C-alpha cells in the first residue's frame, strides 16, 4: 500500500516497497530515502530513468538490481530524454492498442544528481520539459560530483571545499554561487516545480504526489545530504538536513505554473548558517579568521533569498 494519506512515519515505513534495501549507496546517504519516498508515494506503475551517478552505479550492478519496477539508465545526461522517449512510446502504443495492460496507470520519473541535472544533462532536461512530456524529474542534489570523488558542480555552494575547487592556503573553496535551478525550471513554465527535503518527509511525500498527479513535466530539487563528501557522521544525515532547512540554506517551497510560489516550511526558530556550516567538514576552513567573511556573505545571501521568496509568496507571483 502506498501513502494515500500521509499521517505518520509508521505508516510510511510499512508502505509499498519497490526499491530493495540491498544496494551499494553509502551508509547514511539520503538518496535511498528520497527514492523510497517517491516510490511509496504512488500505487501506479512506474517507469524510472536514472542518469549516471551515485544512485545508478549503486542500484543496478549486474546481475543484481534494486529496482522492482521498470528502470533504465543510458548515460550521464539523458534520463529526462529516456523518460520522454518511453512516455512517447506509451502514448503511441495506447493509441494503437498494443499495450499489455492498457488501463493500468503509468507514471514516468527521471532521477539525476546535481551533476547530471545542473551541469552535463541541463540541455536534455530543458528540452524534455519544453516538449511537455508527462513526467516528473527529481534531482538528488548533494551539491557535488559525489560518484567520482567529490568534484565541484554548479550546485556546489560558495565556500565549500571540493576536489576541483579546493580550500587551500590562498583559496576558501568554491567562489561561484549555486545555480538557481528551481527558478530556471519554473521559467520553463513547468506546471509544478518544488524544492523538498527528506527530513520534512510529509511535505516531500505530498510534493511527490502532486508532481505525479500533475499532467505535464514537473521538476523537484531535493536536498540529499552526502555523508562522504560533506563530511559528517553517517548517523547524522537527517540532523544535517534539519540544519539545512532550519538555517534556510535549503528553503522548502513550490512554484505552480511558474507563477505561484508557496513556502512549504517555515522554521519556528531560524538558526544561523554558521551552525549548519560548522557541522560539516567541507566548510571547516571557513572558520579560520581570514575566511570568516565568507560565512558572513553566505548568511547575507541566505537572508536575501528568504526575503525574496517571502515577497514572491506574499505578492502571489
Amino acid at each position: 500500500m502506498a501513502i494515500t494519506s500521509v499521517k505518520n512515519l509508521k505508516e510510511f515505513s510499512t508502505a509499498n516497497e519497490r526499491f530493495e534495501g540491498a544496494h551499494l549507496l553509502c551508509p547514511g546517504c539520503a538518496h535511498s530515502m528520497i527514492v523510497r519516498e517517491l516510490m511509496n508515494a504512488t500505487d501506479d506503475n512506474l517507469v524510472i530513468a536514472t542518469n549516471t551517478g551515485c544512485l545508478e552505479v549503486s542500484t543496478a550492478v549486474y546481475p543484481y538490481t534494486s529496482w522492482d519496477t521498470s528502470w533504465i539508465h543510458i548515460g550521464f545526461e539523458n534520463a529526462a530524454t529516456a523518460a520522454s522517449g518511453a512516455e512517447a512510446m506509451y502514448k503511441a502504443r495506447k493509441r494503437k492498442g498494443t499495450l499489455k495492460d492498457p488501463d493500468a496507470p503509468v507514471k514516468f520519473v527521471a532521477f539525476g544528481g546535481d551533476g547530471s541535472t545542473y551541469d552535463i544533462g541541463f540541455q536534455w532536461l530543458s528540452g524534455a520539459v519544453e516538449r511537455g512530456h508527462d513526467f516528473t524529474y527529481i534531482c538528488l542534489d548533494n551539491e557535488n560530483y559525489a560518484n567520482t570523488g567529490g568534484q565541484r558542480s554548479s550546485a556546489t555552494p560558495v565556500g565549500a571545499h571540493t576536489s576541483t575547487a579546493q580550500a587551500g592556503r590562498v583559496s576558501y573553496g568554491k567562489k561561484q554561487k549555486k545555480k538557481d535551478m528551481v527558478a530556471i525550471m519554473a521559467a520553463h513554465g513547468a506546471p509544478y516545480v518544488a524544492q523538498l527535503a527528506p527530513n520534512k518527509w510529509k511535505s516531500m511525500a505530498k510534493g511527490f504526489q502532486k508532481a505525479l498527479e500533475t499532467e505535464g513535466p514537473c521538476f523537484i530539487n531535493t536536498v540529499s545530504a552526502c555523508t562522504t563528501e560533506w563530511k559528517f557522521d553517517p548517523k547524522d544525515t537527517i540532523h544535517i538536513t534539519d540544519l539545512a532547512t532550519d538555517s534556510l540554506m535549503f528553503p522548502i517551497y513550490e512554484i505552480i505554473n511558474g507563477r505561484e510560489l508557496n513556502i512549504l516550511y517555515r522554521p519556528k526558530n531560524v538558526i544561523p548558517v554558521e551552525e549548519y556550516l560548522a557541522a560539516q567538514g567541507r566548510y571547516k576552513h571557513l572558520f579560520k579568521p581570514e575566511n570568516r567573511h565568507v560565512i558572513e556573505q553566505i548568511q547575507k545571501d541566505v537572508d536575501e533569498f528568504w526575503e525574496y521568496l517571502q515577497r514572491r509568496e506574499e505578492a502571489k507571483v
Partner: protein
Amino acid sequence: MAEKMDLQSTEVWDGNYAAAQALRQAQVDVVAAYPITPSTPIVENYGNFVANGYVDGEFVMVESEHAAMSGCVGAAAAGGRVATATSSQGFALMVEVLYQASGMRLPIVLTVVNRALASPLNVRGDHGDMYLGRDSGWIQLDAFNAQEAYDLTLMAFKIGEDINVRLPVMVHQDGFITSHTAQNIHPLSDDEAYAFVGDYKPVDEMLDFSRPVTYGAQTEEDWHFEHKAKQHRALMDSYVVIDRVFEEFEKKTGRKYKRLETYMMEDAEVAIVALGTTVETAILAAKQLREEEGIKAGIVAPRTFRPFPFNEIREALAGLKCVAAMDRSCPMGAMGALYNEVNGALASIPADQRPLMTNFIYGLGGRDFSVKEAKRIFREQKGHADVGYITTPIQQFSGLRGPKLGFYEVKRS
C-alpha cells in the same frame, strides 16, 4: 488508424523521400529526431505524413541528435518500433548513445545520409560519419541509390527486430548524390510493405509491469567482457537473418540483394572495392573498359559494412591480380579502413592467389568521383597486374588538387 497513401507502381522520389516513405510504411511507433543537412528532408517529409494523418505513432522533435538517439533508446526499451535519421555532426553527437543502444540490444533503425565531418565544416557527402559508426555495434546496410535506400530501410526493421538479432540497424545513403537526386522508384503498396515488415514484437519491454526489467546495468571486469562478446557474436551471426530477409524481399519484389555485391567478377583480373554511389560509377567505368580496352574489370561492394562480409570478400577476390580499395573517408595516419579490412580478409588465402592491393582516398567533402577517374584507377591496377608489383605508392589520393600525395612504396628486389 493511420490513413493509407495511394502510391503508383513507379514514383519519382529522391533518397530522402524514399527513406521517409519506408519509415511511414513501417508505421514506426516513435520517431525522435533532430534535423541536419542533408538528411533534414527525411524528418520534414515524415513530419508532413504526421500532420496529414498518415502516421499513428509519436513524432518527438528533440533538441539535439544526442537527445534524438536517447529518446529512441527510451522508446525502444518501452517496447515498440523506433526510428530516426541523421548525418555528419549529428551522427557524431549521437555516437555515445549509438553504443548504448546496441549494448542494450534495442532494434532502432537509423537512416544515415552520409556527409563529411568537420573541420573544415562541409555539408557534402563522404563516408566519415559512416566510418565513425563502424565499431558501434550496429548493423550497417549501404544503399548505392534511392531505390536501395527505400528497400533497405524496410528490410532494416525486419532484420533488426528479428528475435535472433535484436540489434539496431543503420541504412546509409550518400549525401546529395542519393539523398537529393530524384529517380524512378518502385515502392510496395502500404499493405504489402507493412505485411513484409510485420508487427513489432516487444521483448523485455518496460511497459509490461508484470515482469519488471532493468536496462543499462553496470558491469565491470567481472561481466563486461562476456556482454560485449555476446553482442559481437549476435552481430557476426546476424548474416543468417540478413540473408533470409534479402531472400524474402527478392521473392516479393524481384529485387536481389547480397551481403557482398559483385559486378562483372566472373572473369575479372582487376577490381575496385567501394561503398555507396561510387559503386555505380565504377560499374559504368568497368563496362566501358571491357568494351573499349578489353580490361577485365570488376567491382566488389559490401552491402553490409557491418557485419563485414569477410568470407565473401575472400572468395570474391581470391585469384585476382590487383585490387584497389576505395575509401571515401580520410584515415588520418593509417591506411583506409576498407583497405585494411579487405586486406585482412585476403591475408588468410594462399600467397599465390592473393591479389596486389592498393588504397585510394577519394571524394572527401563531396569532391566528384568521375567515370573517367574510375577508368584511370582500373587501368593503373591493370598496369600493376601486368608487371607483377605495385608501381605507385600503395596509398594514393584521387581527385586531390595540387601535387600528388601518396604513401608507402613497394621495394623491388
